């Protein structure tokens, strides 16, 4: 494994018979992922996209040795679905579901952590390692195997930037979309060490947003523990304080979590910060070239 997923990753899709579950099972398989099982209570015994469906994650794991889960079940049932995966021994769960109450997510996060399961998300595009595996919903078309790592709090903006990297003729090692909710299972600080240790990543792209202090905390980690070049972009420079910009994470309150503080922290940590998404690929190419020259 390089960063969390690889050829050994065996995915169970929770909520596979829903529209999203089915669509993205197809996409994950097209990506080359081993999607070994689906779960929808009451639909055990059927098949979706050639994948056997089980009534419970426990059954799915017992029969298919699934070791990663991709959760699409509706928000009111997401907490139980996550606990089910954890109890079945699944140690990596991508939660795509949006609108999960943060009170539920608090339980999910601390329960999973206690049992040794990593959550990516919720309300996130998931994780993908081109040429290896994808657990989530990032469009396949933006990827191309390469040596640029990407960690992002955004969804479609991640696609935009990852696609930009591809169109620039570069490729990605692993890309993680953390999700933009107030409480996420994996934050920048949690994800950065994985890329620092990953021999397949030469450079890291961090895509942040206003709201919270995850980028500042990430910058602190960069400063003290990260040796690879970093290109960053922070969305929302022009967003007014106090307004929720789309999802609950992206809000500036009490003067904390502004684009300015994030950009300043990242620059102080040695990252090159793009002012616009379309500047990212150029900066990446430039830093890789500089690195190559050394």
């Amino acid at each position, binding site marked *: 494994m390089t960063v969390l997923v690889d050829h050994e990753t065996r995915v169970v899709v929770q909520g596979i018979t829903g529209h999203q579950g089915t*669509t*993205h099972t197809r*996409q994950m398989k097209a990506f080359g992922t081993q999607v070994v099982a689906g779960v929808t209570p009451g639909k055990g015994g059927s098949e979706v996209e050639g994948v056997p469906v089980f009534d419970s994650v426990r059954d799915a794991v017992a029969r298919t040795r699934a070791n990663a889960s991709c959760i699409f079940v509706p*928000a*009111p049932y997401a907490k139980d679905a996550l606990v089910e995966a954890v109890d079945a021994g699944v140690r990596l769960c991508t939660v795509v579901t*949006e*609108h*999960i*109450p*943060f*009170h*539920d997510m*608090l*339980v999910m*996060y*601390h329960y999973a952590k206690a049992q040794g399961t990593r959550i990516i998300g919720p*309300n996130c*595009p998931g994780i993908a390692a081109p040429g290896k595996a994808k657990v989530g*919903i990032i*469009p396949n*078309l933006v990827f191309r195997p390469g040596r640029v790592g990407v960690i992002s*709090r*955004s*969804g*479609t*903006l*991640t*696609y*935009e930037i990852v*696609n930009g990297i591809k169109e620039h003729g570069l490729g990605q090692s692993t890309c993680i979309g953390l999700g*933009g909710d*107030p*409480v996420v299972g994996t934050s920048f600080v949690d994800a950065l060490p994985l890329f620092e240790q990953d021999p397949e990543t030469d450079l890291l792209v961090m*895509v942040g*947003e206003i709201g*919270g*202090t*995850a980028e500042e*905390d990430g910058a602190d980690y960069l400063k003290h523990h990260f040796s690879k070049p970093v290109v960053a*972009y922070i*969305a*929302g*420079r*022009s*967003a*007014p304080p106090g*307004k*929720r*910009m*789309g*999802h*609950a*994470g*992206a809000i500036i309150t*009490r*003067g904390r979590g502004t684009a300015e503080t994030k950009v300043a922290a990242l620059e102080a940590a040695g990252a090159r910060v793009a*002012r*616009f*998404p*379309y500047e990212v690929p150029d900066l990446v190419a430039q830093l890789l070239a500089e690195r190559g020259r050394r």
Partner: protein
Amino acid sequence: MVKLAEWRGKDVFRKYGIPLPRGAVARSADEAENLVRSGRVPLPCVVKAQVLAGGRGKGGAVKFASTPEEARTAAAAILGLEFKGENVKELLLEEKLALGRELYVAVTLDRALRLPILIASAHGGVEIESVDDAEIDRQPVHPFPGLTNFEKRRAARALGLSGGPAKALDRLLDALWGAFQVEDAELVEINPLAVVGDGLVALDAKVIIEDDAAFRHPEYAEIRDDRTPLEEIAREKEIAFVQLDGNIGVIANGAGLTMATLDVLKEFGGAPGVFLDLGGTDDPKKVTEAFLLMAQAKPKAVFLNIFGGVTRCDTVANGLVAAMQQVPPSDRFPLVARIRGNNEKEGTEILRAAGVVAVPSLKESAQAAVAAARGTP
């Protein structure tokens, strides 16, 4: 998020046993006077505008009354005020208590810790933002063991309470914690929390309920104090709606992409107005709905920026062209559309054929949108 008006917040507090001044809600000067005459609100009393903004005291939205007539006069003066953009339609009348010290307590979420935090300060009665950080005690509370005695003791220490008021705090914090959890609150705040004799009384109530937990709380479904009709439609369609000051309508999918679009528009001198975020989806139906909704907002120009992941761009483009026909000619606006992803070339061509400015580059399309809003194509 649902911000509850003070009196609704106090209804929640009452349910959990948090001590409150005696009081009642009035929606007219007559009603205010009657509440006092009937004894439901004891004299002297305070008459408070039920608006969501802070700073009511200084803003003339809080008055005192010692007689029923004064209550009527105060009510009449406050009702109909426009306070920080809100029309005052409701008043809360409450007994005026002989107050001791005024404190601050709240429970909210600490995102970085991924834990609720209990916040306590001996400096209540002012905006907590204005209180020195060293004077604010913050304690994470883990939801598994729940709020514990030692946390409550530390809060009592931070508030400088002992004896009767400390005992009252013990019960009050349990109630506040219960309300935070059971009501799925983002914030439960008492400011000021007044020491009254041997006890404590919540003089104000700020309760914010999380939208995402609405499925557990049908009781809050009707309380959406600050929504315009367009916002209401957007909510029903599950489209995030944000109203800014400018004149360029923005439709995008995903919060990050929406904000990035904003940043680029501003860079080129554009002023974004209403913007609609479809969330992470590229569902053509939702694109169409957003487009029709945007038409009702009457923007000067619209910039549509969709990154297509699952759906093919040509499908989205066809849907968009079809939607354009549905907008009455009087409501039409210049449209700049950028649709990226699967089959983007085909999609862009469909749009161009329909007379839409369609540029794949974010930079160029933003420039085009700004120009369109200025009427300089």
